[in-house]
């Protein structure tokens, strides 16, 4: 576990391509494992980060509609992932430089019945279900910011 007495932060800046997702996941899992999260919690953190990043790819850069997964490769489209590793929690903040909330509110479904009908909105549902704190905001200089926190249970 991190016994350095102090928290620390790190950042990843990567291009908006789906290919990157499978590389981000082991990195996040490695850090979560090292902090002492359980296998189940690690899986929850892994998918939550993946969902937020996938959303950037499918929504932030404006060439797709909800439910329409077209993940074009556009290298100038960035995702920034900031991690703050603290004694009792992990905070992950995902930023993009896309459309923000101009396309409509960033909300997920409320339950699986709603999802079964609509066929989209599951990503945000997952993040809210698995993380202890979730904040979605729209910084002026950037598109969307999704900030999530998971506390260590022990």
């Amino acid at each position, binding site marked *: 576990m991190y016994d350095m007495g102090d928290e620390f932060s790190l950042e990843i800046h990567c291009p908006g391509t789906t290919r990157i997702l499978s590389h981000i996941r082991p990195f996040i899992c490695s850090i979560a494992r090292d902090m002492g999260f359980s296998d189940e919690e690690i899986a929850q953190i*892994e998918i939550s980060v993946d969902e937020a990043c996938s959303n950037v790819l499918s929504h932030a850069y404006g060439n797709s509609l909800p439910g329409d997964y077209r993940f074009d490769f556009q290298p100038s489209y960035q995702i920034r992932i900031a991690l703050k590793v603290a004694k009792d929690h992990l905070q992950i903040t995902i930023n993009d430089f896309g459309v923000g909330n101009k396309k409509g509110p960033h909300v997920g479904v409320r339950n699986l019945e709603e999802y079964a009908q609509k066929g989209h909105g599951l*990503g945000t549902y*997952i993040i809210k279900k698995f993380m202890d704190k979730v904040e979605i905001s729209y910084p002026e200089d950037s598109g969307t910011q999704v900030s999530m926190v998971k506390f260590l249970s022990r």
Partner: protein
Amino acid sequence: MKTFDLNIRLETREKNYSLIEISGYLDAHTVNMFENRMEEILESGEQNMVLDLLDLNYISSAGIGALMSLTQRLRKKHGDLVLLRPNRKVYKILDLLGFTKIFVVALDEKEMEDFFKSKKQEQK
């Protein structure tokens, strides 16, 4: 050698179902390939599909969404989709989200065969 992101292998076509092995990960990157392959199998007229998930290491909402619409389409044809022996991690994610109540999940081959038997019974 490169290990593939997603491998899809049509294992057998039984009398009542197609058995398809899915290995690797099913995320926003691989979901298109998955959907295209499933489309081909669907178009061949299949009513029941069994996905062997033993070597599937990861699934995200993109993958779950693809499983969802596949299930819905097969059920419209009075068929079904069976998720066979997902690993602990994939099962846990599906379960925590409530999808084990929506999908047919079989932990082993016996459970899968029992499902098809009892379904046949019902349809009689």
